[in-house]
């Protein structure tokens, strides 16, 4: 089940990423600086959109803790057109290095947390089955720490964050091959408090 869910998430993310490229494509040749400025503008727009949604959430009288509010947050976190719908990040073997693509997505999560201070997130670190279990427990934590640090420096508060490592004890994919291993070397963000 969970394996399927992960695949669905990946597929969704892949189509989302393709969509993004389509929207922002420009016939003119752009240099890196311009691309960066546009990325920053996009990030600002995204932040403004989040702020508007937040305002909207408040004005809808969906007060924090209400069922309507929970539904609203749930929708924000699962909207396939939002980076927030991606909450699983994958890692290379014996590494806690976050990819540049994931850094941006984690940035969106940090902003979301900053604008929703009542919401909590558990940062769950995992490893693949190779190597020893207790080392992998520490490796899962190192991955979770890397993601937690990115959330913190981009605005999430300490009290919103909880970190746990399951090492190799809670895989999402079975199998003794790179396909399974790559899905298991991951950090998951699990939201609560809404």
């Amino acid at each position, binding site marked *: 089940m969970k394996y399927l869910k992960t695949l669905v998430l990946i597929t969704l993310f892949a189509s989302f990423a393709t969509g993004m490229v389509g929207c922002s494509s420009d016939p003119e040749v752009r240099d890196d600086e311009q691309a960066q400025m546009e990325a920053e503008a996009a990030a600002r727009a995204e932040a403004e959109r989040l702020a508007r949604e937040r305002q909207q959430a408040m004005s809808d009288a969906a007060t924090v803790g209400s069922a309507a509010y929970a539904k609203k947050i749930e929708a924000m976190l699962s909207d396939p057109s939002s980076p927030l719908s991606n909450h699983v990040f994958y890692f290379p073997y014996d590494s806690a290095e976050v990819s540049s693509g994931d850094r941006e997505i984690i940035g969106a999560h940090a902003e979301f947390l900053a604008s929703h201070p009542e919401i909590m997130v558990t940062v769950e670190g995992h490893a693949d089955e190779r190597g020893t*279990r*207790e*080392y992998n*427990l*520490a*490796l899962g*934590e190192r991955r979770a720490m890397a993601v937690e640090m990115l959330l913190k420096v981009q605005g999430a508060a300490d009290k919103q964050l909880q970190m746990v490592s*399951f090492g190799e*004890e809670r*895989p999402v994919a079975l199998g003794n091959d790179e396909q399974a291993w790559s899905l298991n070397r991951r950090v998951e963000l699990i939201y609560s408090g809404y």
Partner: protein
Amino acid sequence: MNLKLPLLTLILLALSWFTPASARLNIEITGGLEGGIPIAIVPFAPPDGAALPEDIAAIVTADLGRTGLFSTMPRDKMTQFPNNGKDIDFTHWRAQAMDNIVVGRILPDARQGAGGYQIEFQLFDSSRRSQLSGFSFQANNNTLRLVAHQISDIIYKQLTGVRGSFNTHISYIMAEDVITDKRLYRLAVADSDGFNEKIVLTSKHPLMSPAWSPNGKQLAYVSFEEGRSMIYLQELATGKRQLIASYPGINSAPRWSPDSKRLAMALSRDGNSEIYTLTLDSKKLERVTNSYAIDTEPDWHPSGKSLLFTSDRGGGPQIYTIGIDANGAAIGQPQRITFEGKYNARGTFSPDGNLIAFIHGRDNSYRVAVQDLQRGTMRILTKSYLDESPSFSANGIMLIYATEHNHRGVLSSVSVDGRASTRLNVTRGDVREPAWSPYLLPESQGN
């Protein structure tokens, strides 16, 4: 011929501590056994032709075979079946190149009432035509396997000079349905050959890292039942549990000090995984390592005066040692002791402190290796790909470890010289993280 049959009083282990479960493990020899000490273990004569629930000669044959030190005679090659020393045709056995012969018989024991037995066995040297050993045991249907392992211990000691460790237990974790919401983890204890499995604890959350107390009466382990890793102690006889480490972050890899006073463990309470010792009486915590790297998987030297641990401070995981003083605090700086390859982890000292066993990773294979601490030479013992958690037998002649077979976690044993390996099969779930108990009984007469 002098038949000596001293009566061994059995000290029965308290078996009430577990809920019984059917034996799910059985034995499969995966390595060769040529060139060992030749021995024929003749089927024991059953009482008045009645069938016994256990085949004692088969259990003893399997025990000795797993060590790699014996060349046991297959039963289908036997043409004579004596069950008393006076009936042995030594010329016949010498012609079979069987230097050692074990014969035995099972008699009803009226003193114990119905279901009681007296089990007698004798070990003979066929070239000298002399008895090397002979004992009598009292048993019932529940203790037949225990008696068989005691017989194995006596024969092993007689023929090798080393105390046997067949009459010991193993502890391990079983996992089922780990990728679904039905996931289930069990902490189990079984005889050293994988039989008589008993479930100590069942949980919906991961269980890890069982470790025996030096007296064999308690296990320390990691449970995620509170949502994250915490260390518990559990008395096997009573089932009584105690939460011993629930610091912020991970609480992992407990290992009892040889004097039972302390646990070494890996905690990330100070930022990242470091080694600590916790004195059980005072609950005083001493930080042993201090680095930005992962430091975990501690194990005590049998002297109690140093620890080994895994650290990736040099890049990849390697094994280091550090001195420990009488208060459990670190002495000096860690010294790296493994140098071959990029991945050496989960080390454990042999009971005499002369060897370490660990997992050696290379080209996507993770295998059990041993290293001689004096000479520094490393030897890979297995040919499998995903080995984990090697643990020495109490006498240091064998290791039990977890590996993958047909995409499932199974336990295997391997002799320290790498000559014999045996797989303990499982009928369901994944089996992992075996820990071999210390001796459970004081060394008795004959073993």
